[in-house]
C-alpha cells in the first residue's frame, strides 16, 4: 500500500522515579495523548497548571480516523496555538452532492458565512492534527510528555489519585491531585475504576478506505444512498489532504469484516464507484462498528473524563473529536479555578452537566443521521426514499434528507452557570446566556484582527460604546478595577469609532458594525464572557454589582 504519511516516533526516556523509587507527585495527570488529551494538557498549561501527560504508545493516531474539524474546534485550536497549522494543511470543501441510486438528487454549496476568522470545517487526517498538537505540547515548559508510559492501575482515595505506571524499564508510582482520563473509547482508566458507560452498539459495520487519487478529483463531499455499485447501502466520499480521499462503505451487520477488508474485495468496489478509468492507490483499509453511549457523569471525585472516554457517537457529523476538543475547552478553566482555591469543587459538576448536555445533543443528531441512512424498518426505508425522491425538485425534501449534520457547538442555555437576561432588557440575535460567541472582525490599534483571538482564556467583560471618548469616568474606573478581584476579569471595550482608552483595557474597534449586529449591541451594552468563550450574562447597562454576582454565579461562588 502507498504511504503519503510518515509516522513520527516520539522519544521515550527512562523516568527518573524508576531508579529513585520515589513517588512522583503532580497536581494533574492526563492519561492519553490523543487529540483530546493533548488539547486538555495544552489548555491547562495555558492556564498555568503544570501537567504530566502519559501515553502508552509513541506515535500519533494510526490509519484513517477523524477527518473533519468544524469551526468551533478550529477556534479552540487557535487558542492552543495550532489553528494555523491545521487550517493551512487541511482542505476545505464547499460543494456536497447527494446521490440516490443512479441519480444526483441535489447538491449544495456551503459558502462560508462572511466575517468569521475560520471556515465552517476543514478536512485533515487525524494523524496530522495529533502531530501538530504533540509538537506544540512538547514546546510548552509546563507539560511533561511521557511516551510509552502505560497506566496499569488507578486508585482514588479522598483528595488524590494514585497510578501505577509501567515502562520498558520497570514500574513507578504517580500521585496526582487530579486525573483526567483521555484514554479513548475503551478507556482503561474507566475500566480500572469500575465505572459504567451506557448505550448501545449499532448493528452495522463500515469499511473505511483511504485512497490516493492519481488524477485531479474535485474537493467535494459525495454521499450515495443505495448506489448501483453498492446496492442497499450508503457510501461517503470525502477529500483529505495530500490528495487522499476517504471512503466509507456501509456494509451491514452480516458482513464478514476480515473478508471485506481484503484488497481483492475492496478494489472492485472502489473502481465501480469511481468509474474504471480513474487511477488510484489504496493507502488504508479497516472495518469498524460504532457505538453510541456515554457515561452517566463525566466527573467522579478527582477523576474527570474527556472525549471518547466519556462519550461516543456514530461518525455522522464529525461529532467525536470536535466534541472532545470542546470538553477540553470547558474543563481547563474550571479545574484551574478549583486548583487555585478560587472556586469550589462543585464547579466541576458543571463541567459534567454542560458536557453531558452537549453529548446528548451530539448523540441525538448522530443517531438521527444513522436512522435516516440506515432505516430500521420497511416503513422507515419508504419514508427515506420518499424524502430523497422529493429532494430533487423541492426545498422541503432537501431539508429532510439527513446524511450527517456537521458538528456545531451546543448552546448551553440551560446551564446553572448562566445569569438569565433581566425581564426588562431584550436582545435580538442569538448571543443569549450560554451561547458560544460568534466571531467578528475587529481593529486593534488600527490592525485587522478577530474578536475570538482577543477574548477568552479568562473571564472578559465586553463593553460596547459608539465613541470611547463618551464613556464616563466612573465606568472607565469600574471597568479597570475589575481585574483586581479574586477572579480576574479582563475589560474589553468595543466601539464603533476609534479613540483612546487607558492602559489595561483591551480596545477593539467595530468599524463595520458586525459585532454590534451579531450581539445586538447598543452603547452601554455589556457581555460577561467565560474563559471558554461562552456568554455568561449580558445587560443593557454596566453595573459592577450585577457583574460581580454573575461572575460569582459562573464560578459557583454564589
Amino acid at each position, binding site marked *: 500500500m502507498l504511504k503519503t504519511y510518515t509516522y513520527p516516533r516520539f522519544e521515550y526516556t527512562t523516568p527518573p522515579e524508576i531508579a529513585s523509587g520515589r513517588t512522583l507527585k503532580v497536581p494533574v495527570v492526563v492519561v492519553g495523548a490523543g487529540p483530546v488529551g493533548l488539547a486538555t494538557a495544552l489548555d491547562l498549561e495555558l492556564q498555568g497548571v503544570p501537567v504530566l501527560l502519559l501515553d502508552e504508545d509513541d506515535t500519533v493516531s494510526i490509519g484513517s480516523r477523524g477527518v473533519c474539524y468544524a469551526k468551533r474546534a478550529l477556534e479552540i485550536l487557535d487558542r492552543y496555538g495550532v489553528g494555523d497549522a491545521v487550517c493551512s494543511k487541511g482542505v476545505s470543501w464547499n460543494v456536497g452532492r447527494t446521490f440516490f441510486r443512479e441519480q444526483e438528487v441535489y447538491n449544495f454549496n456551503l459558502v462560508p458565512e462572511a466575517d468569521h476568522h475560520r471556515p465552517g470545517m476543514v478536512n485533515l487526517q487525524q494523524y496530522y492534527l495529533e502531530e501538530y498538537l504533540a509538537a506544540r505540547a512538547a514546546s510548552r515548559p509546563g507539560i511533561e510528555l511521557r511516551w510509552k508510559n502505560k497506566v496499569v492501575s488507578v486508585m482514588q482515595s479522598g483528595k488524590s489519585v494514585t497510578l501505577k505506571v509501567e515502562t520498558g524499564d520497570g514500574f513507578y508510582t504517580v500521585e496526582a491531585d487530579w486525573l483526567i482520563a483521555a484514554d479513548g473509547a475503551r478507556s482503561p482508566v474507566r475500566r480500572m475504576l469500575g465505572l459504567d458507560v451506557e448505550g448501545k452498539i449499532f448493528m452495522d459495520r463500515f469499511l473505511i478506505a483511504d485512497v490516493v487519487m492519481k488524477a485531479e478529483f474535485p474537493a467535494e463531499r459525495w454521499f450515495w444512498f443505495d448506489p448501483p455499485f453498492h446496492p442497499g447501502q450508503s457510501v461517503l466520499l470525502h477529500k483529505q489532504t495530500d490528495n487522499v480521499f476517504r471512503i466509507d462503505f456501509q456494509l451491514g451487520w452480516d458482513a464478514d469484516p476480515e473478508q471485506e477488508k481484503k484488497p481483492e474485495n475492496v478494489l472492485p468496489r472502489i473502481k465501480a464507484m469511481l468509474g474504471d478509468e480513474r487511477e488510484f492507490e489504496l493507502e488504508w483499509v479497516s472495518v469498524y462498528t460504532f457505538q453510541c453511549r456515554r457515561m452517566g457523569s463525566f466527573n467522579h471525585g478527582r477523576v474527570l473524563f474527556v472525549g471518547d472516554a466519556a462519550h461516543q457517537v456514530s461518525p455522522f457529523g464529525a461529532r467525536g473529536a470536535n466534541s472532545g476538543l470542546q470538553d477540553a475547552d470547558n474543563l481547563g478553566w474550571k479545574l484551574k479555578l478549583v486548583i487555585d482555591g478560587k472556586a469550589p469543587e462543585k464547579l466541576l459538576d458543571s463541567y459534567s452537566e454542560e458536557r453531558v448536555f452537549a453529548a446528548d445533543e451530539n448523540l441525538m*443528531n448522530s443517531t438521527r443521521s444513522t436512522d435516516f441512512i440506515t432505516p430500521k424498518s420497511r*416503513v422507515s426505508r419508504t419514508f427515506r426514499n420518499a*424524502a430523497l*425522491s422529493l429532494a430533487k425538485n423541492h426545498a*422541503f425534501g432537501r*431539508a*429532510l434528507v439527513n446524511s450527517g449534520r456537521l458538528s456545531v457547538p451546543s448552546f448551553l442555555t440551560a446551564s446553572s452557570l448562566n445569569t438569565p437576561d433581566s425581564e426588562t432588557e431584550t436582545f435580538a440575535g*442569538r448571543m443569549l446566556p450560554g451561547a458560544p460567541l460568534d466571531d467578528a472582525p475587529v481593529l486593534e490599534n488600527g490592525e485587522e484582527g478577530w474578536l475570538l483571538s482577543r477574548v477568552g482564556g479568562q473571564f472578559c467583560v465586553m463593553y460596547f460604546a459608539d465613541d470611547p471618548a463618551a464613556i464616563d469616568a466612573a465606568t472607565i474606573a469600574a471597568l479597570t478595577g475589575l481585574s483586581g478581584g479574586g477572579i480576574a476579569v479582563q475589560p474589553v471595550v468595543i466601539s464603533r469609532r476609534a479613540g483612546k482608552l487607558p492602559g489595561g483595557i483591551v480596545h477593539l474597534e467595530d468599524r463595520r458594525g458586525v459585532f454590534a449586529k451579531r450581539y445586538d449591541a447598543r452603547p452601554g451594552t455589556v457581555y460577561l464572557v467565560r474563559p471558554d468563550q461562552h456568554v455568561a450574562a449580558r445587560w443593557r447597562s454596566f453595573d459592577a454589582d450585577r457583574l460581580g454576582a454573575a461572575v460569582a454565579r459562573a464560578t459557583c461562588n454564589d
Partner: protein
Amino acid sequence: MSINLNPNFSEAGKRYFSAYSPADDFYELLINTHRDLTDEQSELLNARLILLLANHIGDIGTLREALKLSREGV
C-alpha cells in the same frame, strides 16, 4: 392557496440554533410513531395520518396540488 414547498417546520416556544433541527425533530417523531408496528399496521397508520392532515389543511386546491406532486415520478 398554493402549496408551500419550502422547509416549514417549527414548534411553538422552541428556539432553534441549527437550521436542520426542525425538520429532523419532525422526522424523528414520524419514524418513532411507527416503532414496533407491523408493515400492515404502518400502512394503516400512514393512511390515517394523511386523512388527519388533509382535513386539517382543508383547502382542496392545496390538497389537489399535493396529490398531484406526490404522484409525480412514482
